[in-house]
């Protein structure tokens, strides 16, 4: 049996979910026999590959770049997992929705900047008007709430997914867990 092609991706989030993922520690080694990590911010792949079995997406959709990424990921993934509260609910990144992106940029690049007060226009992608959870852009197959989901949750979920079963998420984690 060929190994499951697993990917993880990082949109607008704090990377805490990825840290928690790594917190599986030695259990990660135990699981790693069953998958190949084909794309992840944890490793150095440049492009998101074709024919991925499972992708764990951390973070909300908050920039034009995120929108492109998530559509690409969805197109190339069989089972998409919204990983963590930002991907599932918008969470902390979405707290700016009540104020709008301009207020955020003004705060970051003008009020709190001592030198060179200006809005970056190149390299940094444009902020969307509203930060949205992943499922408002593409269909999601499994939701894994938690901020972040615990290492134990990751372990239980991955064990099930790698065995081609759907895990019972509600018994493992919740919003804000």
């Amino acid at each position, binding site marked *: 049996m060929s190994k499951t092609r697993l990917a993880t991706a990082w949109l607008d989030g704090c990377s805490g979910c990825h840290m928690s993922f790594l917190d599986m520690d030695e259990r990660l080694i135990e699981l790693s026999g069953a998958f190949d990590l084909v794309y992840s911010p944890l490793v150095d792949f440049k492009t998101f590959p074709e024919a991925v079995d499972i992708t764990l997406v951390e973070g909300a959709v908050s920039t034009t770049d995120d929108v492109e990424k998530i559509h690409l990921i969805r197109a190339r993934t069989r089972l998409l997992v919204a990983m963590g509260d930002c991907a599932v609910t918008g969470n902390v990144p979405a707290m700016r929705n009540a104020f709008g992106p301009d207020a955020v940029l003004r705060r970051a690049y003008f009020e709190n900047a001592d030198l060179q007060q200006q809005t970056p226009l190149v390299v940094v992608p444009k902020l969307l008007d509203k930060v949205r959870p992943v*499922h408002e852009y593409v269909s999601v197959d499994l939701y894994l709430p938690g901020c972040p989901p615990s290492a134990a949750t990751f372990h239980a979920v991955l064990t099930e997914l790698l065995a081609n079963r759907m895990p019972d998420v*509600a018994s493992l984690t919740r919003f804000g867990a």
Partner: protein
Amino acid sequence: MSASVDVKTLVIDGVDVSARQDQTVLDVARENNIFIPTLCHLEGLSEVGACRLCLVEIKGSPKLFPACVLKVEEGMEVITHSERLLHYRQTILELLFAERNHVCAVCVANGNCELQTIAQSQRLTHVRLPYRNPKLPVDLSHERFAADHNRCILCTRCVRVCAEIEGAHVWDVMGRGIDSMVITDLNDPWGSSSCTRCGKCVQVCPTGALFDKSKVGVSHPKSPEFLPYLNLMREEQ
């Protein structure tokens, strides 16, 4: 209580139970360890039947009934858990989560929140509805407490406990529909209102909407259990 209280027998989720005639289905279910989710109900306060989470099915009726105000009847067959009820409860919870800004991860009530706990018990893992993300105030004017309207679910427990138990009626609801909001006095800052500083509203608040400022950054469990006891003491006096 008079000695000649009628006893009724009914069936809840296939279990035969008996009840006093003045009891509600919710009371009897809880006595028999049958869990029905509630948010606006709190033992010791009047019932408003507003959160709709305790809706149950009665055999023979297409309608749903809120268990918190439904009086028991002889021979009644109650169903508290079904696919249909689960779907309705989940959707109601989704409506609550999408209505305001419930950011559990950074909420003072995280881990001690009834909304959060019930969402998990109803197996809710995401919200299909678009988040409304309204801009709402946080009132920090009170010396001891704070009100974060982003977390309020308008259960009106604070309004009822203040009016019915403390007797001050400092809290009420202003506006209507989606614009409703709990207020103190004439929509005054809580700190300069006629608040008696008793803190009951904070203890009965099911979410992080009303909280004790000293508990920010540490665990903030609420203790509304004093209510039935307090009512009993009053009856005795």
